[in-house]
């Protein structure tokens, strides 16, 4: 900011704030509308501008979506699979990233290149063989099929390696001189110092699995195993005109994501920037 002419600057600042507010309305209005519709009675006109606000407020739409539409079970399924995928990803990715960032061994860079190369492979390529493997293992309609294939992503290894590399080598050398083995280094030095990185990966992974659609759609056919996105899509297919219930389901799907983002926003933003640094 050069700040030469204060009056002109004041006007420009005001215009900037107006523009920013209008844009913020564009990004948030659909959400507010989604929530308003989720609280309306089915026979209240949904899109009449005179009836933007729900009157009376139908909190029971959430209960009906939860039980009648079967979204409660789906919500639990999504919560469980997302948590399991996140835990497994954090554990295995951090161990592998430690080996790539902090240990010295022959062939390290070659193996890492293989990991890096697969980041480019589209889901569609692995999808069909993976489905056939699940079928062969008789894992279709199982929690294993929902959790395991998503739990070893090369992306997690890549991201955590970026974080681990930023830890100064002197700390590690001092610990090694004190007789720290690799496991102690991992447990007591590297993972505690890289906690922001682990938090970042946790949020990314959780949100990614929470919205994952294609894979759960393919490996589950029984309603008891549907995750929330699949259950919502199948409900929408059957009852496309029940907007209030559909929107209640959408709120159930999006609110936890907004909450997770707001809680971990700092890590999230930092993680996006770390992920783009060429390693």
């Amino acid at each position, binding site marked *: 900011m*050069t700040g030469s002419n204060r009056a002109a600057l004041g006007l*420009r*600042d005001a215009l*900037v704030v107006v*523009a*920013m507010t209008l*844009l913020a309305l564009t*990004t*948030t209005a*659909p*959400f507010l*509308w*989604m929530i308003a519709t989720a609280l309306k009675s089915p026979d209240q006109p949904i*899109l009449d501008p005179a009836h933007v606000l729900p009157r009376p407020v139908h909190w029971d739409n959430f209960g009906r979506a939860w039980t009648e539409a079967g979204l409660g079970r789906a919500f639990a399924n999504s919560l469980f699979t997302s948590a399991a995928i996140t835990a497994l990803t954090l554990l*295995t990715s951090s*161990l*592998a990233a430690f080996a790539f960032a902090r*240990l*010295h*061994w*022959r062939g*390290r860079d070659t193996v890492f290149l293989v*990991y890096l190369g*697969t980041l*480019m*492979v589209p889901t*569609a*390529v*692995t*999808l*069909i*063989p*993976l*489905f*056939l*493997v699940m079928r062969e293992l008789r894992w279709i309609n199982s929690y294993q099929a929902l959790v*395991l294939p998503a*739990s*070893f992503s*090369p992306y997690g290894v890549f991201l955590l390696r970026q974080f681990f590399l930023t830890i100064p080598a002197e700390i590690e050398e001092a610990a*090694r001189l004190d007789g720290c083995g*690799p*496991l102690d280094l991992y447990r007591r030095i590297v993972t505690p110092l890289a906690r922001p990185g682990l938090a970042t990966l946790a949020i990314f992974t959780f*949100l990614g699995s*929470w*919205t994952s*659609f*294609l894979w759960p759609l393919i490996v589950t056919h029984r309603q008891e195993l549907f995750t929330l*996105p699949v259950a919502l899509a199948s409900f*929408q297919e059957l009852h496309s005109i029940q907007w209030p219930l559909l*929107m209640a389901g*959408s709120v159930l799907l*999006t609110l936890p*994501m907004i909450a997770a*983002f707001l809680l971990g*926003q700092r890590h999230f*933003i930092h993680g996006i*920037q770390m992920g*783009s640094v*060429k390693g």
Partner: protein
Amino acid sequence: MTAGHSRSKRGDFGAALLFLLPNALGFSFFTLFPVAAAVALSLFDWNLFTEPRFVGLANFADLLGFRNTPEGWAPNDPRFWKFTGNTLFLMLGIPVNVAASLGLALLLRRGGRLQVTFRTLYFLPSICTGIGIYVMWQWLLNPDSGALNKILAVVGIAGPGWLKSYEWAKPGLMLMGLWSAAGGTNMVLYLAGLQNVPSELEEAAALDGAGAWGRFRHVVWPCLQPTTFFILTMGLIHGFQGGFDAAYVMTRGGPDGSTTTISYYIFQHAFRWFHMGYAAAIAVVLLGVIFVATALNWRWGSRE
């Protein structure tokens, strides 16, 4: 001392193996093996119910080949070319989205103390992307009762049929893409990139009489090249394989295939018609296209 020294010379091979093993096993089984299997599968004809039959490159010939007909050369699989066209058309949204992200980042830079609040509000759509948003937009884009056409009607424009119309379905999806992506990851990356623009350079340019546009064109934009390059590379990779989730929920690939993308076509062949080999062949072609596009982009990007 000596023990530590000799270990660092030997390397940590044994330990590295143990650390790597849990992830490497899963990675090999759920990523590496499927990639190889997809390539192998593309050489077979298999509908899941009969024995797989080796057909060599026949799937690729059926997919990419042309044959001579009385009306001239015709593609063996016209749908593949049509859906490739759809995918490329939807990818035209990428530069628009990137420009919007940059615009928002530039605006936020002027935002001072309000920057974090507005960044959060702009980020919300991209964080919530997924089925909930698709259901919501399906309704926003409803031609008769949707909010968008109601708003357009207020200013005297008769809104198009959006997802119900062959011509407007793709622009409708692109509009949703713009709404959800503009304030997302790319904006955050540009915000970080803008922090690395040396303020002395900008001030020097201002002293030399450069206006806002001049400063942007000659100082800010060149400094953002690495960020733009990264964003476009990721955009290309995602763009070629994108479009399934939204189309599945909002349009079922229609009307009349106008929103079917390559990834949707793979899904149809594999899981609707059980043409496992043919679907794998399309996936392998997709992988090749992404590989070549990324390589070209790298070459072009590193020359800059």
